């Protein structure tokens, strides 16, 4: 289905022709535009890497005040929203460079007859990732609602056994959800889920033991089918495919239009990679390690920096099986664990010290929920916007190609 690859044999033979064409294309104006584009990319990602309030290392003891300061920390919802804005800006600028004032035939000639379809193919894959991530955010909202239940229960005064058990039940559900979303989809929702669930929930009907008093997790999980993108779809495979033919332009090409195309594709892949890292996403095994980003290019420095930070975090988490690296989710998970601990050790009446420390954690959890409540839906909408932008741009590029008359209907 990919003609681009079929062309590769004859591609070499055409290099000399191509070179000649290039010297015409590289006007001074274009050079200027390209440099500006690279500078903007660099600036935008630098701002993302070092957000205005200096990031504070999150720790278990982070209290509410510190966490507020960390709002714009890498992978927080707010940060992800900024990332979406950055993507939209880069995309708009790129499209202007690619299409505005350009003779349509230029982008239908080699090497663009290969580069453009490849780029369009990447954009198709990005669309599916957008859909997967939007679904993933639905799952995060489910976690948020579970956390809200725990918060509401633990905010009750006087804090009694019932409240604590109620919170524990919700938290147990939350932690299962956080830890199995990913795994569950590897095994396409089969037995893996059940074993985990069984360890929490003591089947009331089956066994003779009591589930209710234990606060077992029983709300049940959204089965993979309800949020997956497609039966055999895998985020990891798609990201791999997007990077498979993504190589920096060389020689004469490096100075021309192939460069911004490479940059934009890299940005797209990177953003998609971040999104799949952030929220539950269907099948992403091995993604923590795999994302070739160009190391020595000026425009990519900050992007590489962000990539390394997230990659390190991901590798740590991957073994445990985590639903997502969204900053709020990882904190939610930590708080969930320590609040479950609190619940396990709880005896009525509450010990003052333990209760106070739990109260601080509850307040932090409440704050996380509040932020999720405020920002998840807008983030979801932004991702839909990214989706539509990609669709539109793809259509515009195809239209130009059609005008060029060379590729009346490219297979992508």
């Amino acid at each position, binding site marked *: *289905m990919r003609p681009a690859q079929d062309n590769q044999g004859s591609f070499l033979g055409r290099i000399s022709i191509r070179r000649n064409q290039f010297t015409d294309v590289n006007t001074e104006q274009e050079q200027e535009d390209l440099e500006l584009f690279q500078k903007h990319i660099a600036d935008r990602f630098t701002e993302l890497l070092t957000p205005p309030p200096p990031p504070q290392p999150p720790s278990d003891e982070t209290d509410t005040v510190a966490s507020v300061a960390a709002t714009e920390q890498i992978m927080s919802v707010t940060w992800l929203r900024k990332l979406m804005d950055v993507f939209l800006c880069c995309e708009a600028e790129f499209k202007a460079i690619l299409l505005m004032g350009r003779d349509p035939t230029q982008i239908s000639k080699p090497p663009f007859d290969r580069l453009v379809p490849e780029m369009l193919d990447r954009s*198709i*894959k990005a*669309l*599916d990732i957008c*859909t997967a991530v*939007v*679904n993933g955010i*639905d799952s995060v*909202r*489910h976690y948020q*609602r579970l956390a*809200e*239940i725990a918060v*509401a229960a633990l905010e*009750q005064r*006087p804090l*009694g*056994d*019932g*409240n604590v*058990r*109620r919170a524990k*039940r*919700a938290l147990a559900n939350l932690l299962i959800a956080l830890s199995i979303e990913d795994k569950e989809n590897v095994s396409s929702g089969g037995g893996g889920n059940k074993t985990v669930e069984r360890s929490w929930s003591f089947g*009331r*009907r*089956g066994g*003779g*033991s*009591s*589930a*209710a*008093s*234990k*606060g077992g997790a*029983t*709300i*049940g999980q*959204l*089965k993979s*089918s*309800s949020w997956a*993108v*497609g*039966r055999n*779809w895998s985020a990891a495979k*798609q990201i791999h495919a997007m990077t498979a033919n993504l190589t920096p332009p060389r020689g004469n090409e490096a100075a021309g239009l192939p460069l911004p195309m490479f940059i934009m594709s890299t940005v797209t892949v990177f953003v998609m990679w971040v999104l799949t890292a952030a929220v539950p996403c269907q099948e992403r095994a091995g993604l923590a390690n795999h994302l070739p980003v160009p190391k020595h290019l000026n425009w990519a420095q900050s992007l590489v920096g962000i990539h390394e930070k997230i990659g390190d975090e991901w590798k740590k988490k991957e073994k445990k099986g985590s639903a997502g690296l969204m900053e709020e989710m990882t904190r939610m998970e930590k708080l969930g664990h320590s609040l479950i601990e609190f619940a396990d050790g709880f*005896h*009525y*009446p509450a010990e003052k010290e333990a209760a106070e420390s739990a109260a601080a954690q509850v307040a932090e959890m409440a704050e996380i929920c509040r932020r999720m409540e405020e920002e998840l839906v807008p983030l979801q*909408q932004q991702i*839909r916007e990214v989706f*539509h932008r990609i*669709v539109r741009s*793809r*259509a515009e590029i195809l239209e130009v190609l059609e005008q060029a008359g060379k590729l*009346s*209907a*490219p297979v992508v």
Partner: protein
Amino acid sequence: MEKNDDKDPDHNDKSIIEEKADVVSDAHPPDESDGNSKENVDVGNAETEHNPEDNVESQGEEIQQTLESLSEELDQLLSSLSLHKEEHKDDNTEEKEKGDQEDDDYFQIPQFVGKFLDLLEDKLSKYDSGEPKTVWYQDQEEVSSLLEAVDRVSNLMRLLLNTKSCLDHHEPLINHAGSIQQRAMAFLEDEFRILLEESVIKETTDDTGSQRKSTEDAVVSQDNDQVTAPEPGDQEIEYPGYSEDVVALLRKIAEKMKAGGYGWECREVYLVGRRNILMRTLKQDCEFEKVSIDEVQKMSWGELEREIPIWTKTFKNCSSLFFPGEVKLAEKIFPGDEGSLFCIVAHGLTIQFLGFAEAVAMTKRSTEKLFKILDIYETLRDSFPPMEELFPEELRSELRNEVTSVRSRLGESAINIFSDLENSIKSDSSKTPVPGGAVHPLTRYTMNYLKYSCEYKDTLEQVFKSHSKMEQEEEEVPANNSACSAFASQLMRIMDLLDGNMEAKSKLYKDIPLSCIFMMNNGRYIVQKIKGSAEIHEVMGDTWCRRRSSELRNYHKSNQRETWGNLLGFLGHEGLMHNGKIVKPNLKERFKSFNATFDEIHKTQTTWVINDEQLQSELRVSITAVMIPAYRAFMARFGQYLDPGRQTEKYVKYQPEDIEDLIDELFDGNTSSSSTATAKRRT
């Protein structure tokens, strides 16, 4: 003590016993000694002597004490407590300031409250141990007993928590009651989930699923009978397939949980359950499975062609059945909250549906895809508006925008397919003439395609009207003049292109009459196709058809002139008479020429093809009508001059009847050419 054994086998066991001690002590005025109440517990509530006025009827018959028997008392207590609270509401603020007056606000919690809680706990423990052999929700008595008890606990909790003196003096009781409330709520939550997932009366099994698939056939009524058979008299059994009793119970549980402050748990169970059930239903009933955009691009058209009807069916069913069913169910169980619940259940799925449509619009364009693309377009046009209504206001415009953009992409695709068709007609420059001047495959293909596309006439008119880019401005003028639609002018344009192409192709024939035949064949085919389908006829209009028919007649005439005019020339009288005498050699020459020419015409034109039978006979009839009288007259006039016998036999090869027969052999597409005129004559 033995009643505790099956209750809490976990590590909290001890603490709970301790709490119970506290609780029961709490059920007495605070000045009672702890020792007494502990005794109380240890003997399993057998001793209730401390508050005789509260426990008159329970004395000596504590075994008969049930939740029900205590309920009335508890209700009385609760109402008096709330009355009490009401009375003190106004001067509450004052009292807070006077610390020692708080005791006035204090009321004693009778011991039976603790007893009531114990009984409820027993009940819950029994359920948890799986002791009752019946399913809880199927046992009416158990259901109402538990629900009422839960109600009372919730009311009790509310009062306790909202009354300052209780908070001050009865915290252990609050803890105990809260703990039991939590157990009860957890139990209800589980039951709610089980009920939601397991009590669907007709979760379409494979059996009925396949029957439903064939409802397009004539078995509709039988099928319906079967579907409704299991639960006669219940009208609401369609989707989601719960009996009214089940729905009523779900609602009651939801109400009780909400009243006790556990509404969020109930909602969450509902949401997770419904999403899973809905997906399962779509898979079972419609064979729907999510397909990624990338996959759609990679599918062969054959595969995608099978996916699209599944999609349209699913989307239509969601719009007319599944989504309304979800809203109705949410409305019944969580009245007032159905909008937000429905959104969470259905919004992601709706986005997924639109993604598929988008994906199809993105696939490589080809003419064969038009009809399926229009199917999707129509489905969105017809089934989305009712679906949209189900979503709350704030989501509607977002979804509507999504649908609008998908529809315009599909519409543009459809329009582009027509211009692709135009281009392919323009660029079809095959140089091989169709043998015998028969209908060209391009004409066949184009006409069948157009005829089929006119079955989507109204949709296409709409598509052209709403999604055309303004690049076809030159088309505007004739469109306005003849008041015909953009789609009609598109069709005209294609027809004109087809005509142009056919005319060019007709030049490939060296024989002018054959190129006439070719034009007649193609023209006739086009007219017949258009007349044969009301839709396309309507689009092209009568004027167009009349014009085409008259063009056809012209070809007919010029064919006749080219071929038969020449032959008729041999039958003229000129040059045969000289000074009133017949010039015999000339006459012989005439006959010879006539025969030779006729044989030649017959030989070639029997290989020519006229596909349309009517046209074929029309043409033969009109040739006969010209030729036969002329030949007869010629024979009558000059036949006598040839010597009978040898000479006549030599020169008069054909009798008029023979000519007639031979004309009837023309345009048969007979390429075997073994049937020469001579051979034919003898048969």
